[in-house]
């Protein structure tokens, strides 16, 4: 029999239903692996072993009673950006090192309500600001494919944990590529849904017009299972959109015949590693073989997406993070001289360098005299980028291209120059600016390191995109490869 930790979510679901193993056995097997292997990866900040085992027993009881819910007994982990009632939630920051939320995020409640079992909270770039997981206060996360490399970020802990089979699936958040880029660099299927599809309530805010919760899984099927449970209108999130929740797993079988896939010309040129390009082109040829129609498209303003993002995101970040005042929650400086000193020292001690840089950038672009030149300008360019996608989707059903310019890079390689780090998200940021669903799926290897294919769909067309990914994964096995040492 396949080792328990190699089973996908859907295989665990089927095995539990058939009585091949219990939820307790699955959860205990994963907890053992975390204990033995996570020392080298640092993918978890908090492990909730006792609660997970108790939940597993409750799931086994429900299964025995014929009362199993959609995700009954399935082991997952949450990025440590989602508030979990009674369980420390750090957001990768010293600011929240001791923060125990009095409530849970809607996503956490939805997945628990569907029967999923949480093994713990995963490491991440501080406040989700980073592309390498090196800005975490809790230390770097190592890529399971090669420990000297970064797993990407900001959902780097979730990516490393799922890729190394320390947990079957994990949540993440994606503001500029923070699910798709780590998924690409660790050989996973990473899904960012449409803006507003999944509630942001209880998900610690970075850039509110861009942030969206999603999943890191080993297949499109697993992503579809989780997405159906996570989606839906939430009155507690003022940007939640009231749309019917599709049966995403049921939609996987939708044929690929005649689906028009546009390849972004601007993404396939200079800046893309030749070997990455070769993998992406081979994947496109495979999709064509499966019945899709491949055609070139142009997004003329997409080259402006990174500078646009680095005005909009820091502006929203500086506003959102003003809530950390040292008074109501989070780090509080000792012996303040006065209120101003309490604010300044609590924030300066609590935040790391990259977070401070983004707060400062945001304060700059919003300050008197610069607002029109930067923030308003970026919002206008955002509309141009958005319009490019709308025009493209008049011609095609999906958009495809690379997720990242290169495979995983070394820890420490890009930390001195913020711009070099920011440019790692050059292919992913557009979907956030336009609010579109997008995903990365494994499409090959370069020198033993995974490469990601990115798909982008029109708003609320996750089902079509997941079906395309699923057909590709039925014909290929890149997504099923496991890093050496973690088999």
């Amino acid at each position, binding site marked *: 029999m396949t080792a328990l930790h190699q089973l996908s979510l859907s295989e665990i679901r089927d095995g539990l239903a058939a009585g091949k193993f219990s939820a307790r056995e699955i959860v205990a097997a994963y907890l053992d692996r975390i204990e033995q292997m996570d020392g080298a990866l640092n993918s978890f900040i908090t492990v909730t072993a006792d609660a997970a085992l108790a939940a597993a027993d409750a799931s086994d009881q429900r299964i025995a009673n014929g009362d199993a819910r959609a995700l009954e007994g399935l082991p997952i982990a949450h990025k440590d950006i989602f508030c979990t009632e009674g369980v420390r939630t750090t957001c990768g920051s010293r600011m929240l090192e001791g923060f125990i939320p009095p409530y849970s995020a809607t996503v956490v409640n939805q997945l628990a309500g569907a029967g999923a079992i949480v093994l713990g909270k995963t490491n991440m770039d501080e406040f989700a600001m980073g592309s390498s997981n090196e800005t975490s206060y809790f230390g770097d996360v190592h890529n399971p494919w090669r420990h000297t490399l970064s797993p990407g970020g900001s959902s780097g802990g979730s990516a490393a944990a799922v890729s190394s089979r320390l947990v079957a699936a994990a949540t993440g958040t994606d503001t500029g590529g923070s699910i798709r880029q780590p998924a690409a660099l660790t050989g996973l299927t990473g899904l960012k849904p449409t803006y507003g599809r999944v509630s942001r309530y209880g998900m610690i805010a970075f850039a509110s017009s861009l942030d969206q919760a999603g999943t890191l899984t080993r297949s499109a099927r697993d992503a579809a299972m989780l997405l159906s449970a996570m989606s839906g209108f939430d009155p507690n999130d003022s940007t939640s959109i009231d749309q019917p929740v599709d049966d995403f797993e049921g939609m996987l079988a939708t044929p690929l015949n005649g689906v028009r896939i546009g390849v972004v010309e601007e993404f396939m040129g200079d800046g893309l590693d030749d070997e990455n390009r070769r993998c992406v082109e081979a994947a496109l040829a495979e999709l064509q073989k499966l019945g899709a129609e491949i055609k070139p498209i142009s997004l003329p303003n997409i080259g402006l997406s990174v500078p646009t993002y680095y005005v909009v995101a820091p502006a929203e970040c500086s506003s959102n993070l003003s809530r950390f005042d040292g008074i*109501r929650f989070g780090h509080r400086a000792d012996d303040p001289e006065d209120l101003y000193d309490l604010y300044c020292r609590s924030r300066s001690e609590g935040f790391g360098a990259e977070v401070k840089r983004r707060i400062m950038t945001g304060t700059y672009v919003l300050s008197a005299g610069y607002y029109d030149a930067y923030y308003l300008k970026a919002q206008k360019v955002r509309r141009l980028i958005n319009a490019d996608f709308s025009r493209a989707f008049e011609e095609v059903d999906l958009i495809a291209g690379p997720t990242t310019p290169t495979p995983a890079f070394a820890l420490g390689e890009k930390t001195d120059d913020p711009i070099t780090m920011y440019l790692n998200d050059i292919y992913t940021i557009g979907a*956030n600016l336009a609010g579109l669903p997008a995903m990365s799926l494994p499409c090959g290897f370069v020198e033993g390191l995974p490469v990601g294919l990115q798909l982008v769909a029109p708003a609320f067309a996750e089902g079509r995109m997941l079906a395309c990914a699923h057909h590709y994964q039925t014909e290929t096995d890149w997504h099923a490869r496991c890093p050496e040492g973690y088999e």
Partner: protein
Amino acid sequence: MSVSSDDIDKLATLARLRFEKDEHADFTDKLGSIVAFVDQLQSVDTDDVAPMAHPLDQSQRLRADTADPNIEREQLQSTTSSVEDGLYLVPKVIE
């Protein structure tokens, strides 16, 4: 647009941050390179383009500003140690 050391001081005050001497130069330098990078937006023609605040062009829903009896103050204030009789404690602000 270049960023000066004085700009950093002004922004830090607005953002309620404080930088040590050895950090100051690094922040000036890196913020300068970020501003230079985003400056490429200035050359884009955006006449007649309306700014976009929401990616799907929707407006935010508002709710009535009413007290929610289900929120427990004690539980909500459990996230800080500086609370007395339901009030948050801060350094004296009025002499």
